[in-house]
């Protein structure tokens, strides 16, 4: 078991740099196995050149984030969808 692993909630600050709202409670759906849950509950590996969010059920990569301080790269291919509350 990987001691360095965190929850999606732990990188909430980084996520707030990219998304307009707190997405730690957004619904996520894994494209590989269909598991649903909240982004805050995803397994996060952040001791890396970027941040990798994995499915708690099947370990598939759902989301990846990397930044050079001026640009943020976001890969959402592993998500079948994100469900965000609608503002207003």
């Amino acid at each position: 078991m990987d001691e360095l692993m965190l929850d999606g909630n732990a990188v909430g600050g980084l996520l707030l740099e990219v998304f307009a709202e707190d997405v730690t409670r957004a619904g996520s759906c894994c494209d590989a196995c269909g598991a649903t849950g909240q982004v805050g509950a995803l397994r996060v590996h952040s001791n890396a050149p970027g941040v990798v969010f994995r499915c708690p059920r099947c370990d598939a990569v759902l989301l990846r984030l990397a930044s050079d301080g001026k640009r943020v790269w976001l890969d959402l291919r592993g998500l079948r969808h994100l469900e965000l509350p609608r503002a207003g």
Partner: protein
Amino acid sequence: MSFVSRGFKGRRRDDVPPERIPPGQHATRDFPVLSAGPTPHTPLSDWTFEITGEVAEPRRWTWEEFRALPSEELTTDIHCVTTWSKLDTVWEGVSVDTLLAEVETDAEYVTAFCDGGYTTNLPIEDVTDGKAWVAFAYDGEPLDPEHGGPVRLLVPHLYFWKSAKWVRGLRLTADDEPGFWETLGYHMRGDPWQEQRYWGD
């Protein structure tokens, strides 16, 4: 420049010759563990190393066959794109030249592929002529799983994300195919002395 906190220094080594530290790096005494996913644990009885792709004939070694190959010990500095550098690290491994000698290829690029799905791409000149190894020991001991054991690729002249952990083979390719981090902003080559960290550097 950001706000400076009185008295904060971090834990960097300041006793190293500056010419050994590439731009933007600092020396560390630890060996930080970086990972994009859980540590794989493939039993050695199932483990193989392959060279595939643009080759006349693919080649595969079992663990015993791999360990029977000539190997060498080397001491080298390593540089991680997350800014730490570690000097005088000691490794033992099989030179990639030894492995590539067993295949015929005109390919100009390789993609290292690994347990857990990680990949990284390199020009073939960066893994030949004594520049790269498939390493099975660090600091005199079998390579720890958290540091990539049983074997990892070792390409110390490039940023350490190219030294793929848990490597299971090299796929030779005609084109430079971006790997796991190279598809997400990281430089296709990654030379620390030219500070090639990200796209456009």
